[in-house]
């Protein structure tokens, strides 16, 4: 395989990995009928928390765990407002997107001070480095030169597929997102599942953010989530609300991003902005093609009022 293609594929996998966590977060939320557009903000707080804990303890795994907990904590604001108070989901998602990155920036500034030098934390090692493998073969790099979090992302894809299609609990979960009143008449705890979805969503979005600073980049910079939370929203729709579809969507978006970087290098005639458009144009085109037939949960975005007829 040519080095251009090999490096393009490796970069695609690298760039898709955080998207998988964020897209799964959105998938679990939407499957319970909650459209959470605040993934971007939750990831931002997860990114900072992961970075800080990894820096302080020297253990990136603890950083990921802390990122998950921080994500849950922030998403509980969304959960309480939208489930218990039946507030508008889009508005609160947007509020989280503004609030959480600002909070992350504030904490960073308080901890490190203004105008401080760039602080760098250690990254999680890859399986290849843990096993002491020196080979630079493409397949070795593709399958072994990945952090444990990448394997976790793919395992979660499989587990999610099994959970939603092969388990009673998963079908109950989906029923809450489809027709919560009918689910309630069957004895399913609709409110409980909606809160559970917010815990899972917060944890996965927090992990997705923490991935950026514990597995990808050694530094935390404000805005480092860089729109991935919104791409995750598109990936869930592109993926037709299934984990396999989400995986394909994330790999596609990762590929588009990796491609635009490489095309900038090999081209010297077109303006660079043309290539930077590729991931976004691809998103619009794919959503236009896919969006013709809605396959999402029927009660998505609608508040659930127990006493309402």
């Amino acid at each position, binding site marked *: 395989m040519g*080095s*251009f293609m090999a*490096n393009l594929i490796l*970069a695609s996998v*690298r*760039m898709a990995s955080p998207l998988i966590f964020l897209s799964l977060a959105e998938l679990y939320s939407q499957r319970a009928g909650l459209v959470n557009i605040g993934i971007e903000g939750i990831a931002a707080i997860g990114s900072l928390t992961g970075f800080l804990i990894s820096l302080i303890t020297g253990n990136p795994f603890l950083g990921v765990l802390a990122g998950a907990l921080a994500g849950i904590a922030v998403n509980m*604001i969304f959960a*309480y*407002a939208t489930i*218990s*108070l*039946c*507030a508008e989901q889009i508005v609160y998602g947007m*509020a989280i997107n*503004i*609030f959480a990155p*600002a*909070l992350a*920036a*504030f904490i*960073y*500034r308080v901890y*490190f*001070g*203004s*105008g*401080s*030098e*760039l*602080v*760098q934390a250690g990254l999680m090692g890859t399986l290849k480095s843990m096993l002491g493998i020196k080979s630079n073969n493409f397949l070795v790099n593709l399958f072994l030169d990945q952090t444990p979090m990448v394997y976790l992302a793919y395992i979660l894809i499989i587990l999610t597929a099994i959970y939603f299609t092969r388990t009673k609990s998963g079908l109950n979960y989906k029923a809450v997102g489809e027709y919560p009143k009918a689910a309630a008449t069957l004895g399913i705890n609709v409110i409980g599942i909606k809160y559970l979805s917010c815990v899972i969503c917060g944890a996965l979005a927090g992990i997705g953010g923490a991935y*950026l600073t514990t597995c*990808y*980049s*050694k*530094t935390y*910079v*404000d*805005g*480092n989530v*860089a729109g991935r939370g919104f791409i995750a929203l598109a990936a869930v729709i592109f993926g037709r609300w299934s984990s396999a579809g989400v995986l394909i969507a994330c790999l596609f978006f990762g590929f588009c991003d*990796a491609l635009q*970087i*490489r095309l*900038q*290098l090999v*081209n*010297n005639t077109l*303006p*660079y*902005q043309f290539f*930077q458009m590729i991931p976004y144009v691809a998103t619009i085109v794919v959503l236009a093609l896919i969006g013709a037939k809605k396959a999402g949960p029927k009660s998505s975005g609608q508040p659930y009022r127990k006493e309402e007829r």
Partner: protein
Amino acid sequence: MNRKLIAMVVTGAMIASMAPTFTAHADDTRTVAMICDSSISDGGWGMACYNAMIDAAEKTGWETMYSDSIAQSAYYDTIVSYCDLDVDMIYAPGNQYTDAVLQAAEEYPDIAFALLNGGADTPEKAVNGNVSSLLPNATQIGWIAGALAGLMSESGTIAFIGGMELDTTLAKYAGYGEAAAFVAEENGKTISVLDPVYSGDFSASDKGLEFAKAMMDQGADVFFGDASAVDSGARQAIDEANEANGAIKVYDIAQPADLLGQNDCVIGSQVTDNSVLIELSMKAVEEGTFGGETLYGTLQNGVLSAGELNKDVVPEDVQAKYAEYIQQMVDGTFMGGAAETEAE
């Protein structure tokens, strides 16, 4: 009712947390406010510009305010928010703020606007004459990095990563390339510079990492950038590649502060002391003479300089040659002196 009340309280608390905080200042103390689209803790451009403001303010006794990591759509609104607080000077460190600064300067004629890296012709576009450009010589910045790249490159391919395609970025790229080619030729080598790439913003360190990996695949072994935190991502990728190879064979030249030691791959820095230009602007405000001019920062007036070299990586003879080239730049004889006019 209770739920509505709680929802209102939660919403209010969130909005309050988002609101910028401003420090009140005594009436007789002058205040400068900085806006920046990158973080002031980015270890690069944002940090250097913020610290320059702080240094200048300490010398002049001014108070400071800042808003960083602001979106492009918020440039004007942020500037105007500070103008409404009656600050004495707005400090906007970047060519990209030009339109927002000119618009605000027209609406607030009593406030001074110092535009770092503004165009040489920007002050005359301000209808109220209250805008000054602080203009470090971008070509000389490129030369300082390019001369070192030309001396150090072994593969003959060097790279440049930009944040946005600004005039100053293009000038740095051009200076970097021509100095590297000149120095390499004088030392019996040939250098080619890869086409510049742009991350589109100054925060995407992951993009810097991916750019650097792709450029190393194309043989680049010396990097220079003008992209703030994006550059730090590139340095991470270079460090990883060097670690995999067991030796430091790919290098990075940092800017605009002396970042020697931040990463193993940093062999030197191009240093810009913007505090001198800001201090001059503050004094001009105090004297009532501010506006309508371009304050240049050059190697000759000390605003620009070359940082310390990594003596473990840069051989002694290269250190000596580099010092000679820097002296030629200061003396105006670099590249036979022909390029000095261009740099000015």
